[in-house]
């Protein structure tokens, strides 16, 4: 263990702010401690979730015995300091700064998107400025359209918040400062990439300089009502608000001081099942179908309460519950728990961002789980974390974070897991049987089979010397692997015998909730009912089934996030049709509202029996998350039995990897016109040679029995013979594509039409 701490962080201190005695720890800034104690210090550039920026200078305070004005956002408080946050002089300086912020600031508040929620407007009033006393020669500075967001340099006050978000949070590193004194501005160095993550940069803009292009000039901010909810596109379950007027969602906002969203969360809101009315005939057919169903096939992008209803139906009718992704995850986590003795993994996102060394295994994490990527990025920026990225395909979008890319052969995940665990447990006391299992590993053979050299593991080990706070991120590639349960047990040794935080990313939005609530089955029988999945009778929120269902932003409910937190979701759009609870009621499973089930979620799985309406949904002033509740951790019986590592058939030749592009997660994001559509097969030029394809060819191929027709594109940044194939656009078939993510396929080239 490393206890090196040369900067005394964490030492207890006491100081006085405006006469109030404040206890805190060394390392915190004066501003942080003031906020902990409800003492107001004005700021223009302060953003809690990033390191202090210190560009606005509004937060100056006086400290007894120290000459000059002290910058409270940057300066750490020392023991015994006596701080004054306001005085005539300080007020005058702050007022002067506001005068400077207003130099030539265009007086176009009437048509500015930020009006009504603009920090410049607020502070101008707070400091009583009725005019712009200073002016300078003006410059011509045209508005720049960057795609998802637009930038108006004339409105920009150069607080640098957006740049910090781009660097420290999202890690796209697209935004940079262009210094030039009075002509300083923000530049987008990746304009051609049109990063949706710039929405995060726009969300923190205190003025109207950086705004969502689609939202621009559509409404006044104050006419929108905020509906708090959680984003369910992936398992991160990020905090968000639907901002609604006249039953239309205009935009998504969030509590940007403390949380973030990805592009899908920010822009993927237009997927509600609209215009649905109650079709009682279809409803009756649905009830009959459900009664006679032998199987219910469903996507795990449903609420906990809906999952609970399905479980109730299973208990009533004996129907099998089929949700492939959730089932794979359930089995993986059960095997994992059989080693750790805990029913959930120990890690969470925050632990990832606090790490100094992170290993990612089995996930194309930038696409699969943007919030995990953000938190890896935070660790990379704040802690200079070592990031080992283990995957068969390199990801250029991760290059700025990754310090060691460890490429392995598709299919060799079991061997890779064993090698990794052997490396991490090398100098650690473990029980005899575990040691025997590790000692028996044929390292040379596994190394050859996976194509990761032993020296790469040595380098990994070396890079972790004297580091503290480690994280291991496990991804969906492993859950569907034919040897998933054995892999789970091997990986679980890391949690059990080291101090790693382990996070097993749930493979879809509520896979964790579903896997905890439902008694899932492996194989479907005819006759089947589907819920957002193709079946003999299909209930669909996508609008193309036998009976319409509400999308998740049209109903109340909860989900379980990657942080093992149950969070509430609320209604943002009206829905006029029948819902799953109506079917359940017709079958005699009675509850007035779906959310009546929230309190009934199984206690033995860690749910806490809290009513939906009693769930909190906010952050405290200092950023403590008060959303829903954290699941309780339960002990599970353990058994240690490890099998010999099995070799899979090689994945040589052309291989296709099921992976959605960034911002696309499901048929629901696919419905959103505001997100880029990238449903094409992309591969390297090497892949093109192996498959005899050319850039722009139309191809077809079959994965897990589902036929894909795709445009093939060569991606110059890719290498190797694995191409990436999205599945989000397959509608009701999407949940059916949930087997091992790597597949050898035969690619058929479609005849080109003569032009």
């Amino acid at each position, binding site marked *: 263990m490393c206890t090196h701490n040369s900067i005394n962080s964490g030492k207890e201190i006491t100081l006085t702010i405006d006469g109030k005695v404040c206890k805190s720890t060394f390392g915190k800034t004066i501003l942080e401690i003031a906020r902990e104690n409800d003492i107001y210090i004005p700021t223009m550039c302060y953003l809690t979730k990033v390191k202090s920026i210190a560009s606005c200078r509004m937060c100056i305070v006086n400290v007894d015995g120290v000459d000059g004005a002290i910058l409270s956002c940057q300066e750490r408080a020392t023991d015994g300091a006596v701080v004054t946050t306001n005085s005539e002089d300080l007020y005058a300086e702050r007022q002067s700064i506001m005068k400077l912020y207003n130099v030539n600031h265009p007086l176009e508040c009437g048509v500015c998107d930020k009006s009504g929620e603009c920090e410049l407007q607020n502070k101008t009033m707070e400091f009583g400025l009725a005019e712009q006393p200073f002016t300078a020669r003006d410059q011509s500075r045209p508005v720049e359209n960057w795609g998802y967001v637009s930038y108006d340099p004339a409105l920009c006050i150069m607080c640098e918040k957006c740049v910090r978000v781009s660097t420290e949070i999202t890690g796209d590193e697209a935004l940079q400062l262009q*210094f030039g004194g009075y002509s300083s501005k923000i530049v987008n160095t990746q304009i051609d990439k049109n990063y949706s993550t710039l929405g995060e940069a726009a969300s923190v803009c205190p003025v109207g300089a950086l705004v969502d292009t689609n939202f621009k000039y559509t409404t006044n901010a104050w006419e929108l009502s905020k509906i708090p909810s959680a984003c369910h596109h992936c398992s991160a379950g990020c905090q968000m608000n639907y901002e609604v007027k006249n039953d239309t969602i205009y935009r998504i906002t969030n509590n940007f001081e403390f949380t973030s969203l990805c592009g899908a969360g920010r822009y993927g809101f237009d997927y509600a099942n609209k215009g649905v009315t109650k079709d009682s005939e279809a409803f009756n057919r649905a009830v009959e179908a459900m009664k006679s169903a032998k199987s219910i096939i469903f996507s795990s992008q449903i609420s906990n309460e809906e999952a609970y209803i399905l479980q109730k139906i299973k208990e009533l009718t004996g129907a099998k519950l089929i949700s492939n992704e959730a089932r794979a995850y359930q089995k993986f986590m059960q095997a994992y728990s059989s080693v750790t003795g805990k029913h959930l993994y120990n890690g969470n996102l925050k632990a990832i961002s606090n790490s100094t060394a992170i290993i990612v295994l089995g996930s194309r994490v930038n696409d699969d789980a943007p919030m995990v990527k953000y938190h890896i990025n935070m660790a990379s920026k704040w802690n200079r974390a070592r990031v080992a990225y283990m995957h068969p395909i390199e990801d250029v979008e991760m290059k700025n974070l990754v310090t060691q890319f460890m490429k392995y052969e598709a299919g060799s995940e079991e061997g890779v897991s064993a090698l990794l665990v052997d490396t991490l447990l090398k100098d650690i006391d473990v029980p005899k049987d575990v040691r025997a299992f590790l000692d028996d590993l044929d390292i040379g053979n596994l190394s050859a089979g996976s194509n990761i050299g032993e020296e790469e593991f040595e380098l990994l080990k070396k890079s972790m010397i004297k580091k503290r706070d480690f994280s291991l991120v496990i991804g969906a590639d492993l859950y569907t692997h034919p040897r998933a349960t054995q892999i789970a047990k091997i990986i679980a040794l890391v949690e059990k015998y080291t101090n790693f935080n382990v996070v097993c990313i749930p493979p879809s939005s509520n896979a964790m909730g579903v896997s905890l609530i439902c008694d899932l089955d492996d194989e479907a029988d005819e006759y089947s009912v589907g819920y957002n999945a193709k079946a003999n009778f299909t209930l669909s929120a996508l609008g193309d089934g036998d009976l319409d269902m509400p999308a998740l932003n049209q109903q109340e409910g909860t989900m379980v996030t990657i942080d093992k937190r149950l969070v509430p979701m609320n209604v943002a759009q009206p829905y006029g049709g029948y819902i799953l609870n109506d079917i359940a009621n017709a079958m005699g499973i009675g509850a007035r509202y779906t959310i009546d089930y929230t309190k009934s979620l199984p206690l033995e799985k860690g749910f806490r029996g809290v009513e939906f309406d009693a769930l909190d949904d906010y952050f405290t002033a200092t950023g403590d998350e008060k959303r829903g509740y954290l699941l309780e951790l339960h002990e599970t019986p353990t058994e240690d039995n490890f099998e010999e590592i099995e070799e899979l058939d090689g994945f040589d030749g052309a291989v296709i990897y099921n992976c959605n592009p960034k911002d696309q997660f499901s048929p629901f994001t696919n419905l959103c016109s505001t997100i880029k559509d990238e449903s094409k097969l992309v591969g390297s030029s090497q892949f093109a040679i192996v498959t005899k394809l050319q850039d722009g060819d139309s191809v077809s191929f079959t994965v897990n029995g589902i036929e894909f027709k795709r445009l093939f594109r060569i991606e110059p940044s890719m290498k190797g013979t694995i191409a990436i194939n999205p599945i989000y656009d397959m509608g009701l078939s999407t949940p059916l594509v949930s087997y091992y993510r790597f597949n050898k396929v035969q690619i058929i080239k479609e005849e080109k039409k003569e032009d």
Partner: protein
Amino acid sequence: MSGIVFSTWQDELIDNRGKSSDEWVETGFKLPETYYGDTNSKAFIGWDGVAIFDEDIDAVELASQYAAQYQEYSEACGRCAPGRWGGRILYDLLDKIARGEGSHDDISHLKEIAKTMMTTSKCEIGKTVPKPILDLMEHYKEQFDTCIDAQVPSKHYNGNTSYIAKVTAPCTDMCPAHVDIPAYIEGVRDMVFTESLAATRQTMPLAHTCGRVCPHPCEDACRRTNLDEPISIMELKRIGADYETDHEIPWLHPREPKEPRNDGKKVAIIGAGPAGLTAAYYLALEGIQVDIFEELPVNGGEVAVGVPEYRMPVDKYNKDIELVLQMPTVSITNNHRVDANRLKEIYDEYDATMLGFGARLSKKVRASNENPKMGGYWGAISMLDKVNLWSKYNIGSSASNELKDKVVVCVGGGFTSMDVVRCSIREGAKKVIMLYRRDEKTIIRNTTYEEYHEAVEEGVEFIFHSAIEEIFDDGEKITKLKVNRFELVPDPNGGRAQLVKIEDGDFEIECDYLIPAVSQALDTQILPEEWNIEMTSWNSILTNGKDYMTSKEGLFAAGDCEYGPMTIVNAVGQARRAASVISRYIYDGKCTLIDDEIMEDHLNRLKVYDKNEKITGWMPGIPRAVSQKLETDERKTNNKEVNLGFSGEEAISEAERCMRCYYISMVAV
């Protein structure tokens, strides 16, 4: 005309206006009264005041041009509200007055803005710019009033006065390579590590190296010392360099390298050490062809074969070397010893030649019976060559064959001797003793606190105030040493304390090896006798210390061969200047300095750091971060890098302590 008319520099108020020449007061500061050659300065204006050398000065234009230069140099700033808009308004208002369109309201606005800038600006440049402007507005008030009252332009408005400005910082000024230290620290603070590295490489290509083994003279000029402790400047440099390696990003240059010129001009460099590599890099950035001739099979000079792996891992140094050698116009020939004849050939063939061959002859300890050929007598340079060639490159054989279980005595007190004793420990010596003439405090000052303490921890025995009087041998090898002891006797007259030999203090040490590491000398055989190259009194190659040309036209020298054994950063600084001069010399045959270099020298002479200055606006008592080191047991038997560098938290915390002490100064000529 000479002498100072008026000055507020560092609160030394001199006002000779209207006085007869015998009443004139002289300044105590080395202000740049003469700009360059026979060009006189009219005025010097900067962070700490204004000095006027010409009675006919246009004070209004001077003030307005100073504000304008601040605007122009805003790439160093423009990052806080007061600096960004304040600077602009300062200039706009001053220029309005200078044009003859100003009002007295503008004067009061100027004062208001000046106060806000001085109180709340992010860095010193914004805080200090208003000071000399306010000085001029006060002491040359009549000129401002005339412009306003008569609505006329200032007296030489748009005349032929040139204004030459330069941004510096106390640390940057003190650094021999003049690295833009606040910029690379800001890169760390902003977590844009590429920008940090790019800032370093503007004047320092060896970022890995000088982020590890620089004695950091800059830290002695860190203004933070006036408040609590200096910033750990050196260690923050490593962050950007390590980022480049960790993420395998393409080579990061401070500016886009120019296309190869292919114009037939070419420069020869003798020696691929820090000086040679640096000169090659900056010439190559200009697209100029450079051929390096290196005697050793490995590149990097004394840092490669002298500085041990545990201090300077060779794979990191190789990154610095590769940065230079991969430049399209750089070529290198190894195993190529240049002697006097070969140097003549090279000199004739090339448009300019730069010597950077270092100082690689170990000096004697001057004891009686000192015989360098005697067994057990091993010069530090050749001992370290052997250690490093084996441990880093697998060339030769392990020095543990010689040193294992032996008693090693080293005479020294500088970095080289520290390397000798700590390597001896690592090679398995039974006992390692360092003899040093002076005391503990001095050895720490000459090296670093860490270096000395780590050596002690590893088991090196230091005997201070001692010197070898006589060496004994058995005809084949050294057997023992007779050592005198000294004590420091204060001078009763208050002069420097004297080292006085203690009678009966002598003792003997039985030993197997004596490794002298007292100093190094140049191997001057390379210099053709008929060239009569002028040397310094300590027998290094003489230049004027500004353009680095030797007494032989077209022959330049930089690094240890010019200065005598000194630091890496010194070699880098000299070589960069030499490269700049050479880049012009090969075209016009003249040795010239550009304005930026002239100003650099002026500021260095004036001294930027003021250790008595009181710091305001910063919380004192924030601890300086100390990087983590390997424990003694983890390091003393191997060559693992001892210093693990800052954690991210420490790096950012340390960067936040930096006060960004940028200053802008300007000369009117």
